């Protein structure tokens, strides 16, 4: 077997490892093993690359890798689970940047005139998508890390301006296909970076889960394009798997928000409503605030309690206290589980990770569809730091911006308890009718303090 054939076989093994890694994620039990299989596939693929004929500068390669490890490993080890969305955005962005550079440098190596048109297209796709992903991820990171406002950034003529940049890229791509010239490719790269920035600016924080997922698929496609440029089956397979996964996840997320993808990307959701409704007024209506003691009694003497954790719980770092309360109630014979909305948190499935961090067994984390069958028989729905994902306006107020979004039907429970910091509306900036429901009791305060009080009261019973 020649070396080249050997490399191809190893690439095949690595590609299978990647598919197995994704297949492992179909179940929490096999997921970790799957990830290790994927990592092994990666190691094997990298190892064999060192044996590729015609390569040199191994010292420089290892030096560059050492820098990457020195930055990446500690960052990945130390990041808090609440900061996971921006970490994923960052790692996604660097991948996109790398893909763009690979396509660009490969183009620089050969005189442009020797390229066939489809090869130019491959290069341009890799460079453009990679740059958009890099710049878009950087802005998403800045928004999530609160280096800049998470609110949509809008200005007059924004759509037109963005369209203009987009059209500019398309025009230059066509021009570059006709007369391939390095400077044209570089201009495309710069415009693509600019497009990544202006594309993400008007997208509000609540829509970021969809955005990150979309950017993930962009990077996958950029890698696949680089695979075409380099004639690497492995890169095409891996990049395409990621592209397909990101596309599917993006679709699932926009469905979970009840909105179309174009609406999420282009409507600057939340910008207008925030201006008109972000006041703390209750519109003259009264809400019922309860004491921790009353609520503790209500919880302790229930048969079934469903806890709905939202991002407020994560911000307050209250996952562990929530778990403690659940354990206490279970010890008293109360049936307790957590109902998780698909877009709770700042990225798809984020809330599950945060609850898993607090050692909640995954059997007690129920997806929306399963949980919604249970509310009608629940004595208490305890909503901790969530708002929009339980807002009945999504079902019955056609003029509401969140109308059509599937929600957790907490209004079907016999009693509803909200642990809220204040009467301020949620991330989407929309008032919640449920707060004024006669079945609803509110306990104001920081989620962690409130839960701690409830734990103490339940213990005292």
């Amino acid at each position: 077997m020649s070396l080249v054939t050997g490399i191809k076989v190893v690439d095949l093994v690595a590609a299978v490892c990647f598919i197995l890694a994704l297949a492992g994620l179909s179940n929490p039990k096999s997921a970790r093993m799957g990830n290790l299989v994927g990592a092994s596939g990666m190691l094997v693929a990298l190892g064999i690359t060192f044996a590729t004929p015609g390569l040199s500068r191994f010292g420089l390669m290892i030096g560059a890798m050492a820098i990457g490890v020195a930055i990446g490993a500690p960052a990945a080890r130390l990041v808090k689970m609440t900061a996971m969305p921006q970490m994923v955005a960052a790692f996604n962005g660097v991948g996109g940047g790398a893909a763009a550079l690979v396509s660009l440098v490969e183009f620089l190596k050969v005189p442009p005139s020797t390229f066939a048109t489809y090869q130019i297209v491959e290069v341009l796709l890799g460079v453009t998508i990679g740059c958009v992903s890099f710049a878009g991820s950087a802005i998403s990171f800045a928004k999530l890390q609160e280096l800049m406002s998470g609110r949509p950034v809008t200005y007059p003529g924004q759509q037109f301006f963005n369209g203009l940049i987009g059209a500019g890229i398309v025009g230059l791509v066509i021009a570059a296909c006709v007369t391939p010239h390095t400077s044209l490719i570089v201009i495309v790269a710069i415009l693509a970076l600019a497009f990544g920035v202006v594309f993400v600016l008007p997208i509000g924080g609540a829509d970021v889960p969809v955005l990150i997922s979309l950017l993930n698929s962009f990077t996958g496609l950029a890698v696949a394009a680089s695979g075409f440029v380099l004639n690497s089956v492995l890169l095409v397979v891996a990049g395409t798997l990621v592209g397909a996964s990101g596309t599917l996840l993006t679709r699932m997320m926009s469905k979970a928000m009840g909105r179309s993808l174009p609406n999420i990307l282009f409507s600057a959701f939340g910008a207008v409503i925030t201006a008109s409704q972000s006041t703390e007024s209750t519109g003259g209506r009264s809400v019922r605030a309860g004491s921790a003691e009353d609520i503790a009694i209500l919880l302790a003497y229930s048969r079934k309690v469903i806890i709905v954790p939202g991002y407020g719980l994560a911000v307050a770092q209250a996952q562990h206290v929530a778990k403690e309360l659940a354990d206490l109630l279970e010890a008293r014979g109360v049936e307790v589980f957590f109902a998780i909305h698909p877009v709770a948190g700042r990225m798809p499935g984020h809330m599950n990770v945060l609850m898993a961090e607090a050692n909640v067994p995954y059997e007690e984390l129920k997806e929306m569809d399963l949980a919604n069958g249970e509310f009608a028989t629940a004595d208490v729905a305890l909503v901790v730091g969530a708002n929009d994902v339980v807002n009945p306006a999504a079902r019955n107020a056609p003029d509401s911006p969140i109308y059509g979004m599937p929600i957790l039907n907490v209004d079907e429970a016999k009693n509803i308890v909200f642990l809220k910091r204040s009467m301020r509306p949620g991330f989407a900036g929309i008032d919640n009718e449920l707060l004024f429901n006669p079945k609803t009791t509110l306990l104001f305060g920081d989620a962690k303090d409130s839960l701690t009080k409830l734990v103490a009261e339940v213990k005292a019973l």
Partner: protein
Amino acid sequence: MSGTNILELVTVFVLAVFVGFEVISKVPSILHTPLMSGTNAIHGVILVGAMTILGTAHGTTQIVLGFLAVVLATLNVVGGFVVTDRMLEMFKGRQGPPSDKGPKDDTRVGEP
């Protein structure tokens, strides 16, 4: 950069799309965050490409860009797999058999 097998690559691409959709549609929403960071790690395979272009680079510009690509791609690979492993480590089932909660107390009421 020979274009002899463009059709083969397109075939692989199309098949990979179907495999991707097939595999991902089986992932439960509870694991969507690890799925994202896991796929994130997988596209770090661009490191293979980055090593290739650095290893065959001519001139300072190409070497600098290639070096940068290797650094970025390594970040992607290492960060992606480590973060995914950290998350998946936390997903645990119930410890041991489900505890016997005993018969439900009749004094429990729905609306106290």
